[in-house]
Each structure stands twice: as structure tokens, then as C-alpha cells.
């Protein structure tokens, strides 16, 4: 017996791709980000990222603020790594104004910035676990230790999020007396927390099956797309601004640059976890060498007037290369301030990375970029 008709193949059937709006209000978008997915069944045909929901005009607003007030906008744009953003900004101002920062202030800045890097990566690992479907466990683990770090920052600066503690020329005020002791406690807690997260996620069979080999990036592609930070290092390229062009006093510390193998999601996860361990090493060394002394440059006036000129300062932030470009006309306010956002560049590669994978993959690819929408939109 033979069939006297042809079965319709999948291509002949009339199918339509559908648009699915992921965001701006969606649990997986980490802020107010909109991702219009065009999907064919479960496969992603096109991704259209829509940004701008968090735009507050931080760069324009900064033109009307004096240099001390600008620091607040750095906190608010990079709200998960505030100290790192402040550090980059004050270094730019100091470079332009020719200020000499005291040793003690430099060391305290490094300690706080590295602790903030740990806090930011903890946030990433926790949120990534939620994206990939752990029922909040990774989030709770990560937040336990992030909380100890934030408590520590609160003791120093009086704020939990918007620190505004670094100032051009030094620090706003000196750290409390029990700084070193408390810092050791925080490090101990963080070390345990990193191990818990590693045990929970890294060897889990489902995590391996979901993350390995998904959206691999070659180093040359990463450079073409302008990826920086852990996204770039996950491809295997050993590029870290703290080592490539050491700013502040990073040349005094021993630390490794963790890299991945093929730039897939698993590498992005492991690189960030390894970076936390390196940050702990840096903080330990800095604590050992922490000198006494002043915390503010000498001869600072009440109002800082920066000589005319322009400067670009870049720093290795948890999410990548954070740059601040300042044009000064000699006033107490910047004539123009431009922020080079690492998240914005990383996010621009989303389409190239996500098209052709499944919907569930697109979600964790977005998660693995570790974006902060306030920094993208500024």
C-alpha cells in the first residue's frame, strides 16, 4: 500500500513568527530594559533591545554641578559598583587638576573599590542563578554576603547605596577606628560565601548543560563589538586595565587575571567568581600595607577650580571599562562630562550573541552580560 498524497512538510505549513515583549517589566530584565524577541516556536529569530527607560541625563545634569556634586551622579548611574565609578571620576578630576593624593587615601580607595567589586559580582551570581531557574537560593546566598559588605560600607560612609565618599584629592573623612578588624570579618564572610556559591552552581549538572557552549565568543569578535571586563576575559584574552595600564596604586599588588576558554556563559560565570577571589587577595594585601597619615591632599580650597583642558580616565570596573571624559573651561563645574558605559557596549552585542538560540538561552545570555540599566541609559 502506498500513500497517494504527499505529507505537508513543515515549511509548507503556514507558520508565523511571533513577537514577544520581554520587559520593560519582566523578572529577567534586571531593571527597566525591553527586549523584543521575534521567535519561531522556541527559537529566537531576532532580538531588538530597547533602552532609554532609565535615562535621567546624568551627563547633562553634571554640567550644572560642581565637581563634588558630580560624584552623586556617578553613584546613581553605576548603582552596583558605586565606589568603582567614583574612583574613576575622582581620578579624572585629580589628573586634570594635578592633585597629589595621600597614600592612606589611595589604599582605602583600593580596599573599598575591590570590596565593591565583590559585592557587584555577588549580585551577578545571585541574579544569574535566578535567571537560570534556581528558586531564589543563589540569590539568598549571594545577598547574605553582599549584606555584610553593605553594612561595612554603611559604617564608613553612612549610606547603603549612594556613598559619595571619594572626593577629588582624597576621601570625605577618615575610616572608623575598627576598620581593619571589620574588614577582616567581612573578608572571612565573603570567602565562605564564594565557596557556597561555587558548590551550589559550578558543578551542578543542569548548570553545565545549560551554560556550556552557549553563545561562545572569539576574542577578535569581542574586540570588534567593544566588549570589556569579564565578558572580554571570558573569551581567553588576558586584558585587565588594572594590569594593562595600572592606575592608582594597582601596580603594588599581586593578583592573577582569571580568563575563560571559549567565552561561553559558563566562562563568564566562572571568570566572575574567580575575580571575587582575586579581589579578596588584593584587599588582604592592601590591609597589610595600609599606612597612617592624612586622607586629603594638602592645600585644597573650599571650591575646587580645575584648570582648562580635557581628560579621559578609564578604570576596570566590575562590568568592564568605565570611562570618564571631562572638558574643563577653568570653572568649578565641568564644561562637558561624558561617561563611557561598559554595560552599553556589552549590551550592544546582545543581538549577535542571542539570535539562533532558544528563548531560555536568550534570557540567560542577557543575564550573563550583567547589565546595570542606570549605567546604560545614564
Amino acid at each position, binding site marked *: 500500500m502506498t500513500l497517494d498524497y504527499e505529507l505537508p512538510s513543515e515549511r509548507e505549513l503556514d507558520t508565523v513568527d*511571533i*513577537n*514577544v*515583549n520581554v520587559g520593560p517589566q*519582566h*523578572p*529577567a530584565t534586571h531593571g527597566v530594559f525591553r527586549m523584543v524577541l521575534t521567535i*519561531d516556536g*522556541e*527559537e529566537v*529569530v531576532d532580538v531588538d533591545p530597547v533602552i532609554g527607560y532609565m535615562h535621567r541625563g546624568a551627563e547633562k545634569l553634571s554640567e550644572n554641578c560642581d565637581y563634588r556634586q558630580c560624584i552623586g551622579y556617578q553613584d546613581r548611574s553605576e548603582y552596583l559598583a558605586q565606589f568603582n565609578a567614583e574612583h574613576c571620576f575622582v581620578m579624572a578630576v585629580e589628573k586634570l587638576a594635578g592633585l597629589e593624593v595621600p597614600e592612606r587615601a589611595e589604599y582605602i580607595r583600593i580596599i573599598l573599590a575591590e570590596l565593591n567589586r565583590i559585592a557587584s559580582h555577588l549580585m551577578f551570581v545571585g541574579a544569574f*542563578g*535566578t*535567571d*537560570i*531557574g*534556581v*528558586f*531564589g*537560593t543563589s540569590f*539568598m*546566598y549571594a545577598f*547574605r554576603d553582599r549584606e555584610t559588605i553593605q553594612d561595612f560600607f554603611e559604617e564608613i560612609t553612612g549610606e547603603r547605596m549612594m556613598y559619595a565618599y571619594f572626593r577629588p584629592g582624597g576621601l570625605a573623612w577618615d575610616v572608623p577606628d575598627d576598620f581593619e578588624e571589620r574588614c577582616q570579618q567581612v573578608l572571612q564572610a565573603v570567602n565562605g560565601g564564594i565557596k557556597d556559591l561555587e558548590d*551550589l*552552581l559550578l558543578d*551542578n*549538572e*543542569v*548548570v*553545565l*548543560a*545549560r551554560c*556550556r*557552549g*552557549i553563545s561562545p565568543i572569539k576574542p577578535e569578535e569581542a574586540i570588534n563589538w567593544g566588549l570589556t571586563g569579564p565578558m572580554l576575559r571570558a573569551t581567553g584574552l588576558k586584558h585587565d586595565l588594572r594590569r594593562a595600564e595600572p592606575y592608582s596604586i594597582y601596580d603594588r599588588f599581586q593578583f592573577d587575571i582569571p580568563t575563560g576558554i571559549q567565552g561561553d556563559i559558563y566562562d563568564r560565570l566562572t571568570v566572575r567568581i574567580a575575580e571575587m577571589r582575586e579581589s579578596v587577595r588584593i584587599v588582604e594585601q592592601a590591609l597589610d600595607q595600609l599606612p597612617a597619615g592624612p586622607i586629603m591632599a594638602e592645600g585644597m580650597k573650599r571650591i575646587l577650580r580645575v584648570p582648562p583642558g580635557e581628560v579621559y580616565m578609564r578604570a576596570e570596573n566590575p562590568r568592564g571599562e568605565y570611562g570618564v571624559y571631562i572638558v574643563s573651561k577653568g570653572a568649578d563645574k565641568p564644561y562637558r562630562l561624558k561617561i563611557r558605559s561598559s554595560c552599553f557596549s556589552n549590551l550592544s552585542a546582545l543581538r549577535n550573541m542571542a*539570535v*539562533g*538560540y*532558544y*528563548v*531560555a*538561552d536568550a*534570557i540567560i545570555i542577557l543575564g550573563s552580560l550583567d547589565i546595570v540599566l542606570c549605567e546604560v541609559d545614564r
Partner: protein
Amino acid sequence: MIADSLRFIFQNDNAWVDALVRMGIIAALIPLAVIVLTYLERKVIGRFQMRLGPMRVGPYGTLQGVADTVKLLTKEDLRPQTADRWTFELAPFVVVVPVFLAFVTLPFTADLFVRNLELGLFFILAVSGVSIVGFLMAGWGSDNKYALLGGVRAAAQLISYAIPFVLSVLAVAMVGQSLNLVELVDGQDKVPYIAWQPLAFFIFVIAGLAELYRQPFDIPVAESEVVGGPFVEYSGIRWSLFQMAEYLNLVLISVLGSLIFLGGWNWPGGNEVGPALQVFLIVVKASGFILFFMWMRVSMPRLRIDQLMAFCWQVLLPLAFLQIIINGLVLVYGWPDWTLGVLSGIAALAAVYITYRGAHRAGVPSPRLRRARGAV
């Protein structure tokens, strides 16, 4: 007077009154079990995540379930304007009624059941399969793309995993030579069937987890992808019906597993026990399953839909057939019982190894579309 009426209710020969009383007991216990389980799940998950869980309502938060129920009952029953009205409104009932029906023949002790059907096992499996239609109805009727995606995912997943699930249960029925649940449990008075059928148990637990759409198989309701899937547009009482069906399914699969694999109300070794101890034993064994499912929920990420389907059709289904072939050989040639356990045990170890290696294999095949575009 009271004693007389109690005797009339519990000890009478009228089949109708008897059935009504039994149904009354089960119907009263089931919502209670749901309330207890929601509380328990929140507490257990809280402990796993270094939290306390609910603590505010009542001592240690024990009245949280009551507060939630009142809240859900008094919430507005919303329906999207563009939704397909009857499909949307009927879907929760299509999901929850089959689960209730399955409880008709589920025995909790040697005497506590509504009706002991000769084809009880078959009845439970057949009836609980109807729920899938409800998920599709909810997904389609909501007129929401997340819901549609979730509904289609639910249909694909639940239908696929129903097959290894049924086959693993069938393997036990072959060994027990019966489809009557009470007879199956009586057959385990010396040794529970898990000793003879470890492979079927392995398949039962995994396929059961998938039938419950809990982590790592919560793909239809994935919070970070389809935001609750088919349930995204539901609120109030209709949403709580879905929730109720989920917890009832949890009870159903846990009790079924403890009945057919762990010896039900039998004390291991085969001593006769009274009704109170029987209830205790079945609760302990079912709680083992329930706690395992909760543990999985907090520690496992979610699989992807293609990995899920591949695991079902390429791993679980052949293994389920293997178990049935082993059983068939042993039964036909009349080999001693222990060969059943040894063969099935070896196969179960192989199954664990296959699963482990599959997950640790470096790299994954890329989807069709990406290969077609030459991107990889």
C-alpha cells in the same frame, strides 16, 4: 444518640451512605492537605535559603495558609477583555477536577479509600492525563503570548513525560500481577518493590518531577522566561485552583510512589500494624517524596525545552522499555526474584551514569536555526 449516629455513619451496610462518608472524609482532608503543604513548602524552602519563612500570622506562621486562602478568595476574579471567555474560565476546572477524580481510588490505608477499583492504577493514570487539556486551554484562552508559550510547553512536556511515567508504573504492575492498588501494597508485605525495581523507581521519580512541573522541569511556568506561563492572567480563586491542582498532584504522586514502591502501609519486614500506624507509615513515606521534591526545587536550575525532550525520549523512554523487558524475561522464564533486583539495579546504575555523562559532556549541539545560518 451521638454514638448511634456515628455508628450509622461509619459502620453501615448501605453502599451509598458508605461511599458518601468516605468521599466526605477525603474531600475534607484534601484542601487541608493543600493548606498544610503550602505552609510546609514555604517553611522548608525558607530553611534551605537561610530564612525563617512565614512567621507573622499565628505562632510560627502556622495560620499563613488560612490568611492566604482568605486573601485569594476575596480577590477580584479578573478576565482580560480579549480572552476567550469560556476557555479561559473553564480551564482551572479542567485542571483541578481530574486530580480530585484520581483521589477516588487512591488508598491511604488498607481501609481508607473511596472505592477500591480493580483497575485503580489504570484509572489514576488515565484520569490525571486529562489535566493537560486544561493547561492548553489556559494558555490559549488567556490571549497572552507568555501564556501561549507556557501552555504549549506544558502540553509538550506533560504528554512526553506521561509515557515513561506510565511505563515505570506498568513495570510494577507486572511484578505485582495486579492493577489494584490495595493488592499491590499487600504484595509488598515482605519486601517493598523498590528492591526489585530500582530502575523503575528512578524513572518514576524523575518523570514524576516533570509531571509536577517543578524544578528542574518547571519549564511551562518558568518565572524568568514566561512569567508563570499559562497562569499569568489568572487571579484570585481561579489561580488558586491551579495552585491547588499543583499541590494535589504533589500529594497524588508522593502517595502513589510510596504505595507502589515503598510498601505503602506495610512495616518493612511484614508485621501487621493497626490503622493508626498505617496512616503514620504512609504519611512518613509520602513526606519523604514531598521533601525530596522541595529539596530539588531549591537546589536545581531549570533545563531547556530541547534538553528536556531529548532526556525524555532518548534516555527515560528506552530505560523504561528496558525495565519492562527485564521484568518480562524474569516472569516468562520464572527466574528467582533476586535476579529482578540485580538486573534492574545494574540498569539503574547505568541510567545514573548516562544522565551524569550527558550533563558533563563538553559543549552542546547548537539549534537548527543557528547551524543553518552558518553562525557556528
